[in-house]
């Protein structure tokens, strides 16, 4: 617990203490903890003198932020137009089926969180799946588990 607080304060100290830095701080919480912890939001409210309700609104508005803990690996399925035309819908369904959870949810073992994202800007290799920071292009429903198993 104390450790989390220390990390929270370390993140806050990276930025100027103004409302302008709020989104960046929340994003860093997300990176560090794989979600935005309630304690972090309370702390920000104290330090920046911004009402907790506003910080909560940020947390629910921006897709990059999550108020629930995410899995160890994030599997992003690109839903851009080029990917859609080349069958990203079937890829997302294949992942949901194989991992047994729906999009924007996390597997029971907390290993994977499935997300659908709007275009990662790698349209020339569509359809694209991004696991953490690794891009996989020209995906096919039958290939997906070989890739995911690498992250076990």
């Amino acid at each position: 617990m104390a450790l989390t607080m220390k990390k929270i304060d370390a993140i806050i100290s990276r930025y100027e203490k103004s409302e302008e830095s709020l989104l960046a701080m929340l994003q860093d919480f997300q990176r560090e903890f794989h979600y935005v912890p309630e304690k972090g939001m309370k702390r920000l409210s104290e330090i920046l003198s911004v009402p907790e309700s506003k910080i909560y609104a940020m947390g629910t508005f921006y897709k990059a932020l999550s108020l629930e803990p995410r899995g160890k690996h994030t599997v992003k399925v690109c839903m851009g137009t080029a990917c859609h035309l080349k069958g990203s819908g079937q890829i997302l369904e294949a992942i949901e089926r194989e991992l047994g959870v729906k999009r924007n949810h996390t597997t029971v073992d907390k290993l994977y969180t499935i997300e659908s994202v709007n275009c990662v800007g790698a349209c020339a290799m569509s359809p694209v799946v991004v696991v953490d920071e690794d891009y996989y292009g020209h995906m096919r429903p039958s290939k997906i588990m070989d890739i995911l198993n690498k992250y076990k």
Partner: protein
Amino acid sequence: MEAIRSFEQLEQYRERLKASENKDLPTVMICFGTGCQANGSRDVAEAFRKEIENQGLKVGVQIGFKTTGCHGYCENGPLVALRPSDILYLRVAPKDVSEIVEKSIKKDEVVDRLIYKDVNTKETIAQYKSIPFYKFQKRISLRNIGNIDPTSIDDYLLHDGYKGLAKALTMDPDAIISEVEASGLRGRGGGGFPTGSKWRSCKAVPSDVRYVMCNGDEGDPGAFMDRSIMEGDPHSVIEGMIIGAYAIGAHMGYIYVRDEYPLAVKNLQAAISTARDMGFLGKKILGSNFDFDIKISRGGGAFVCGESSALMRSLEGKVGEPRAKYIRSVEKGLYDKPSVLNNVETWNNVPVIIFNGANWYAGFGTKGSKGTKVFSLVGKVNNTGLVEVPMGITIKDLVEKIGGGVLGGKEFKAVQTGGPSGGCIPKALSDLPIDFDSLTEVGSMMGSGGIIVMDEDTCMVDVAKYFIHFLVEESCGKCTPCRDGLPRMLNILNAITEGRGKEGDIETLQELCDVLTYGALCGLGTSAANPVLSTIRYFKEEYDAHIHDRKCPAGVCKELITYRIDKDACTGCTLCAKKCPQECISGERKQVHTIDESRCIRCGVCKDVCNFNAVKIE
């Protein structure tokens, strides 16, 4: 690092760089754009590094090496270009590296299997500039990308970097604005508003504080030109912003970048910090009396934040909701101060316009749309990637000459432009010139420059549903037409694509489109009707087939299709039966297999794994 405090010092520094540059040095340039990195260009670079070190040690051969931004031809990555021979190698793997060095660097030979081969004519081409994908391009915005190392300010300076700024700082700020006005540059982010006029209106508002901002929240699905510019030539954006800030009298600038673009954030951050160290940002830039600095802000994954007023709220650390359009951001923008917000590509054109002059720039393009435009040509087309062409090129030339035609010899059906705010333009209009006004006239729009090619296997009702679904998810919920209208439209489109469509659905859709166009608060809502209206306008027969015949002519809509195994093509290899998640395919080895339609979920796995193209969709 040397801080530059005068124009003379800048030119002396540049001369020193030029003097130490060996233009004949054989140089390997490896594409480090996101696409090529995903295809393994980091491993290729590592292999080159080792090989070059070996060659240097053993035989004393000097070889230059650099990693560059995106070459645009992402489909064929990893790309490796050689200088001075201008050979471009495609799909290079680490195992090819020593052969490339032996044959093409130490000798003048070409490694045939790695060069471009035209899918249609089977012709092979070694030279970068002769490949059709590049031959018809005119690269102004992408002038440096692929030629320079984005992490090196020296490389940018060697390619005339910051010359536009040096010239601008000797000019009267109003003259800069006039120059931009005369160039005819219009906003590259989608709206197409004349850039110079925007600057002038902002400057006309009395205020002691002004801001410039760069919109790098490239949210249109199917578009990645801004990503490529921010990653591959970050200084060009920074230079454009400094010039703009000087022209309107701003001292602080912000770049808002999508969080989904980590490499763009990294390269921009590094570029800003080097530019600051060298005196291009900060106090008394290049010894003038002008102070200016830039901060980067990462977006939070909300499409609506690409809308100007929402972006500014997000920059202020608030929820990114748009506000009504009658308040203009040139008067009351960021922190309610007069502000100029331009897109990445707009900013990156500014330095060359100032350096080469308005007339030079206005010499490209059409009457109403000057200059060039970067497009991301993607979808069902042979050559996918980023291309830059003069405004006014026809759809046909773009798709056929540069794109090499439709993938797999299929029938060309339409192009979609403008992202979720644009529309689909049918094949019948393929002689249409691509410029701001022509696209708007046919019910689409330029948008940020995504051109998505669609073929006979694309269902236009599904495309409309796709965009409306996208917009439902991205609507911020502030105004009623968008928040409630879009889900109503989605319900109807879902019904049509699931075989529950009924008479009158099309008319209801059109009525809802009107409500959005006239009633929504921001551009996201007012343009949301375009994907639906344009597909109804040009592809009404497809809507009718779904509604009346319960058929999807393109074979896309799941509820209206069946998977079947072709008796003549099936070899009985059993692969599909093994992979079927429903275990609903049966058949003995070496016998024709059959799908139990009642249990089939149309997941597409059988079609995907079949090596004999025996799975058909009906």
